Structures are given as structure tokens and as C-alpha cells.
């Protein structure tokens, strides 16, 4: 019904926009701001393709409203490295040949990016391949069979924990 004005910091840029309250955060990013890296694979919270960071925590952008981001910070795949560059998480996934069609990819990158940040901050992260698989269970990939994604995540997290001290394993 009546639109709301919201101010959201997306990838460091402050955006002010008038949105319908019913508009999802995903649609706001994709269609209002034209940031189409965030994908929609199910729109009911299962596939994880729409994962973004909201104030640093991984969330489903299909299960949040744009108005929920008012006054908050959102990070999408477009914002984790300079244009034309890759973040170490992306490089690790590239080297492991993680993905095929790429539709799930932004969601995995953001989930692993969130884990990697925790690891670097010494907050602990999954270490074993089994733990990594469990931590990634909220992201569905139909193409890859996951093995090469786990390879890439393992490499990225190992590199990140190597650079952090006092980190612990978290379930």
C-alpha cells in the first residue's frame, strides 16, 4: 500500500529509495538497484542462492523485506572485491573448479565468504570436510555434486585460519 522511504548501504554505497513494504530485499537489490548477482532459486528459503550479508551475517534476501534493510548494511557478491578482481574465496573456488552453470554460485560465495571472515577474525569456522559440508547444507547446487565446492571452501578457510591466531573449531 503506501510506499516507504528507506536508506540502505549496499556494498558501501548509500542508496535511498521509495519501496513498497511488500518488496523483498532480493527484488530490491536485483530490480530496484540492478544488482543482479543475487539470484533467486526458490523464493522460499531453501536453496540459498539469494544469500547476502546483512550487517555482516549471512541471510536469505528472499526472506527479508527491503524495509528490513532500512538503516542497515548489505553486502552482495558485487561488493566483496574490486571490479575485475576476485576475493580470495572466489579465487579458491575458481581454482577448485567448483561450479558449472553458476546460478547457485553467488549464494555459495557469500556463505563461504561469511565463514572466511569469521575464520580470519579468529571466531572459528568449520575445519573438516564433514563440517564444511554441514555448514553449506543451506545452499543447494544442482550441478556440481558439491565436492569441488568443498575443495575450494577448504582451501579458502585453511588459508584464512592460517592467517588468524587462536581460532577454534565451531560446529
Amino acid at each position, binding site marked *: 500500500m503506501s510506499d516507504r522511504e528507506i536508506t540502505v548501504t549496499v556494498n558501501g554505497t548509500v542508496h535511498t529509495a521509495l519501496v*513498497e513494504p*511488500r*518488496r523483498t530485499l532480493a527484488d530490491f537489490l*536485483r*530490480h530496484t538497484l*540492478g*544488482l*543482479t*548477482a*543475487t*539470484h*533467486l*532459486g*526458490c*523464493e*522460499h528459503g*531453501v*536453496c540459498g*542462492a539469494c544469500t547476502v550479508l546483512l550487517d555482516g551475517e549471512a541471510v536469505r534476501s528472499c526472506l527479508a523485506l527491503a524495509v528490513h534493510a532500512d538503516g542497515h548494511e548489505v553486502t*552482495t*557478491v*558485487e561488493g566483496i*572485491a574490486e571490479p575485475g578482481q*576476485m576475493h580470495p574465496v*572466489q579465487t579458491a*573456488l*575458481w*581454482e577448485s*573448479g567448483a*561450479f*558449472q*552453470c*553458476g*546460478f*547457485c*554460485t*553467488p549464494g555459495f*560465495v557469500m556463505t563461504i565468504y561469511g565463514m572466511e571472515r569469521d575464520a580470519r577474525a579468529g571466531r572459528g569456522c568449520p575445519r573438516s*570436510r*564433514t563440517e*564444511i*559440508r*554441514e555448514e*553449506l*547444507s*543451506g*545452499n*543447494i*547446487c*544442482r*550441478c*556440481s*555434486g*558439491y*565436492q*569441488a*565446492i*568443498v575443495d575450494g571452501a577448504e582451501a579458502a578457510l585453511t588459508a584464512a585460519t592460517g592467517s588468524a591466531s587462536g581460532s577454534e573449531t565451531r560446529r
Partner: protein
Amino acid sequence: MSSSVVGGLVGARIKRREDVRILTGAGRYIDDVHERNTLTCHFVRSTLPHARISGCDVAAAREMEGVVAVITGDEMAQFTNPINLGAPIPGLNSPSFTALATGTVRYVGEPVALVVASDRYVAEDAASLIEIDYDPLEPVVSTTQALADGAPQLFDEVPGNVIHSGEIAVGDIDAAFAEADHVVTDRLDQHRWTCAPMEGRGGVATYDRSTGVLTYEASTQTSHLMRLLVAGFINQPIHLMRVVTSDIGGSFGLKFSMYREDVALCAAAKHLGVSLKWVEDRNENLTAGGSARDETLTIDAAVKADGTLLGFRVNMVMNHGAYPVMPPAPVVTGIAGHMLPGPYRVPAYRFTSTAACTNKASYISLRGPWAVETLVRERMMDLIAKRVGISPVEVRQRNLIPVTEQPTMSGAGFTLDGVTAAETFARLTEMIDLDEIRAQQEKARAEGRLVGFGVGTFYEPAPGTPEFWGLIGFPFSAEPVRLRVEPDGHITAFTTQIPHGQGHETTLAQVIADEMGVAFDDVRIVFGDTDATVFTMIGTGGSKAGMMATGGAMVAAREVRARVLDIAAHMLEASPSDLQIENSVISVKGAPGSAVPLADLAMGCYMAPGMMPQGVDLNLETTAHYDGENGGWGQGSHACWVEIDQETGKIAVTRYLVVEDCGKIINPAVVDGQVIGGIAMGLGGMLLEHAAYGEDGQYLAGTFMDYLMPSAPEVPEIEIEHLEYQAPTMVGSRGVGEGGTVLAPAALLNAVDDAFGQVEAGRITATPLTPTKVLQALGVIED
């Protein structure tokens, strides 16, 4: 890898080029396409499986702000032609239908009306105001119902609801059974499951009133086929129709066919003179996008006392759903029928099939659409082993045809040549120790644990042979590649393949770069756009690319390379056979000072042909076709270990081993990805996924909360061993995309049966292997 990589690209683990845009979120999937002033479409869909439409009130929807048009089925029929996706296959009753339903709806999810609006939110608001009155008809859900006497008829043109029935007969089947020491019988009801790529179907249709050109950017595996079919159904001259594809978020067979939604969207765009987008949401995709498998097979095997096969007698009934898609049902039953005897000696064979139409969504292709043949056959091999008292390894060893005994005839009556299933199986048996496995199982049982082990082997047309496809009645067409050396010496190649995860932009560039002596980054692969690529009926599918597109790229590159060498031979005053191209420089072997850069030569050919050598072909662009020679086969053998929780019925796949042979490997990372992804899909299909219908014809798995695809913890680590049998063809590579999905269900079910056998449990003959069914088979709970 960077442009410094020159030579030796084929076979190397080159990082995929497409990953740069995929990983950075710069891909262009269908919902990312924003043409100027694009409007959004939303389909209103049937809520009943079978009903007459008695009324359709769209007035309130039309009046809504933001709604541009609401088109009903009858209105759509005025500017589209009836759709018929039949093929000239004897006995095929392929019904015609309209883009939007007119008169009768035949499955839950059938499109009934189209809403065009400013955005998807508004379109869905308007859709909720549309009132459709239905007079329910009796739904026909199972094939038993469809084929029963007096069953409701779905279509006048399909008597008895039989879309097609077929037969294959080779050898003297009656004699085989008369001679048999044992007759072993089995049955399988394979449930419906589906492709569910992470991106559903969709497209953006843009009609340019000034030129009359309709451009359809679509998520499809087959752009030329889409163009040909849609143009015909919407009365658009084909030369004024262009189909474009960009990134595709997976397909697995779903996006092989053209669908009625494509026709409706393009027709509406033309009718309204606008740009229209339709993006299938997940509920639509699961409900209306069609689903796969859903077939019932019975099999009798005639065997000798030592386990030697004498013959198979098989009947297959396919639940076709209501409306045909591409490819037609007999192509699927035909491939299944011809592949079923497998890589074994089968002296006599009889296969009958019936495709019956029902009030379900269409039966669509799914990664190795014929795969049920492998599942049924490989389970049968284990049953035979048990009956005659030999191991599952031995029964296969006794019946497999080694490559050294080929060419020979397959059980289904065509030439087998270069099939190395036996060799993959031999390698697999070297890698496992069956006695040790049995000892471990006994130990586990003593601890109260139940551990099963299963194997399987198969071969598949990847791409198959002209003879084989002739029997199926489907074209085995040559694969064209257009290739151009640009004025600066870089290379642009146009493939008719439409990658959606297979990495063709990388693998074909590897092949061409090696052939042309240029760097990987100097080659660009263009795909999808029918304005740029060469016409062929089939884009990507049927594990064709490994051999056919590779061959096309090689033939085109060699043709242009020969011209380049001819021109350079004149310039360098040498014989072409003494020349080499390295790092984009043509030089005389052994005399590096005598050289000309490819860029200079190309610039000369385009800009100053008069100053170039005369009497040689200066055209650096060619379209070449690779005929596929005698084709080839993919094959592999799998071993699967499971542990079954006898209290909860949960099956854990604890180890999985693959030996595969797709010939020469162009990029190991790509091949491994295809194998592992395929196996994950096959395991998920058997353990978790179910595109289930209720007895009332309602669809029960319309969200990912109910349609369960495996996530990372459900998929085991997969170990892969490669054999690289090189057939005496120009292209040593063959396809690899489908085999994992074809064989994994068989290896898994054999492992589960093996576990069940240790505790005298029953067998599951109706998939999927839910925990409930596992406990029923174990006798823990009642049916």
C-alpha cells in the same frame, strides 16, 4: 589461466573462463535481462488435473492499475497455431494443443491465461482476481488407469490414451527361455523425479515493430530448434525470428524442448508489439515444468546354470503425462529399449513399450532420459548372481563383451565397437577387494550395523553411432563450427552447442588454441545467438559435445590453419609442411628467423589482399562440419558402499568409486565435475526426490520443502579413476555428461539390496528409497 599458456592445453586442468563472470556475479541469466520497457508476464494455471473450462472472468484483472493485458486461451488461439510436437515416427499419436488451454485442462499447472503487467507483484495481484470455472472430469493419474478399458480419454487423437507402442525383437527369444536353466524375473516402478535446475525456464521476447524482427532471449539448450518451432506456431517468418541465449542456470534436459509458454510469450510480445519477460518461479517449475522417469518395467531373464545370459524379455510402460514435449516419447523408449541389453552378450531379446498419457505434467528428459534400462538390467544381474550362486562381480565378468571382441552385435541388434565397459569393470575390480568387503560386512553385522556393497556397469550413446540413431529414428546430424581468424590474429569460433554448465567456452577454446597454435585467451567461443551460429536442429544434449563439438572445432581450425599455412608458405618461400604455428607466429621449422606473425598475415588478408600471395585462398573464415565418423560410446563402472540404520531406515552412502572412460580428456576438472554432479543427481533421485502426485491428480511437491534435492552432507566424496580408450577416430573424446546419473541409481540399489540380503529382508521394487520403505523392507514396520 592467462594468455601466456600456449600449447598443450588439451588435457590440462585449465581454469574455466566462464567462472570469472559466474564467480563475480556478472553472469547474464534470464531474469537479469532488462530490455527497455520490458513488461512482466505471469501465467494463470489450472488448479485441477482434468476439467472442462466453463467460464473465465478476467474483467476485474484487466481493470487493475499496472495491468497491460490479460489474454485468455481462446484469445491466444486467434493469433497462434495449434502446437504439435510430433515427429514422423510410425505409430506415434501426438496430440495437438493450444498455447494456453482452450476447452479442457489436463494437468495441475496447465497455463490457462496470461497476465501482462508492469511488474511481477502486480501481475500476481491481477492473477488472483481472475476467476475460472471448471467442471471437473475424472482424473487419470496412473498408467494402469490410463490403459484400463473404458478409461476417460484425454485426447480424441490418442485412442486408448496410447501415445505410442513399440517393439524390438532380436534372436529367438522363445528358444532362449526354453533352453534356460533359470528364469529370473523382476519388476521396477520408478517414481517421478525431475531436473529442477536452480534456474527455471524463462525468456524475454521483444518485438521490434520497425523491423518486424522478434528476438527471443531464452533459457534453452536448443536455440535453433526453439526458433524454428516458435516461429511456426506464431506465424512469424523464420528469417525475422532470432533466438539468443546467455548464461543458463542449469537444465539437465528440462530446457531441451520448446514449451507452450514460449509460444504464448512470443505470440503476446508480437501481438502487443512490446518486450515481455517470463521467469518461471520455483512453484511453477516443480508443478508445471514437467518431470521425468515415472515408468514401470517388468523383466524376465533366461540364464544358464553358470550365469550366462541367454535372453531378456522386457516390457516398459511410460507415464507420459498429458502433453508431448521434445523429444517424442518413442525416442526415449527407443533408446531405453536399445540400450537395455547393455554391454553384455545377450543372444535373444524382446522389448515392448507403451507410452500412456495421463493427467500429469509432461514427461520431460532428465540427464540420460533412458536410464531406467541400466537400473533394471543391473539389478537383474545381481538377482542372477544370487540365483546361480556367484558374486555380482563374477556374473558381470562372465557376460561382459571385452573391446577385443568388438565389433560385434549388441543384444538389441546394432554394431558395438569400441565399448570398454568391460575394461572399466576390470579396473574397478582391481581397485576393490571383494573378500575384504565381505569380511568387513560380517564384522559390522556382529556390531549390529548393516553395510551393503553394490556395483554396476553401463555404456551410453555419447554420441552413439549413425546406425544406432537410425534405429531410434532420430537424426545423427553433423556438427558445424564457424571459425574466423580476426584481422588482429585473434580467433572467434561459433558453436551450436549451448553450454549450461559444461564449460564449452573453455574446452572448445582449449581445442582450437592447440590446433591453431595460439594462446587460450586469444580464442573466444560464441554460442546461442541464431543470428551468429550455424543452423542445426539440436543444440546441447545427448552427451554430444565431447565428441561432436570438439570435432567441429578441430575440422574448422584445421581448415583455416591449412589456408594460413598456404599463405605463409608463399610469404616465407617454404613448403606448408615445413611450417609451424607457435604462439601466434608462423615460422619455418628449424629456422625461427623466417617467420610471420599470424596478426600480420590476417591483417594483410583483410586490408590489403592485393599485396598478399595470389592463387591461394585468403578467406580466413570457414564453416566446417564434423560428421562424427562412426560416433562412439561413453561407459563406466561404479561401486557403492552404504550403511543402513536399521532403526531409522536412513541410508548413508559411505563410499563411492567410479571408473569411467570418455576417451581423451580435454579438461579433467570439467570431466570430474560432470561425473560427480551426475552421481549426486542419481543418488538424490533415488533417496530423496519425488515429484509426487496424489491419487486425485493434485501435485504434492510444489516447493523445495517437499521436493528434496541433496545438499552437501547428503553427497559422499566420490573417487574417480579414468581410462582413456582412444577409438581410431579423429576426435579421441566422447561425451560424459549423463553417465553418472544413469548408473548411480543402479549401484546404489544394488548396495541396498546387498545389505537387505544379509538380513533376509525384502527388496524395494518401487522407488524412491524413503526411510519408510527401508523399514518396511526390513520388516520393522508394516506396509
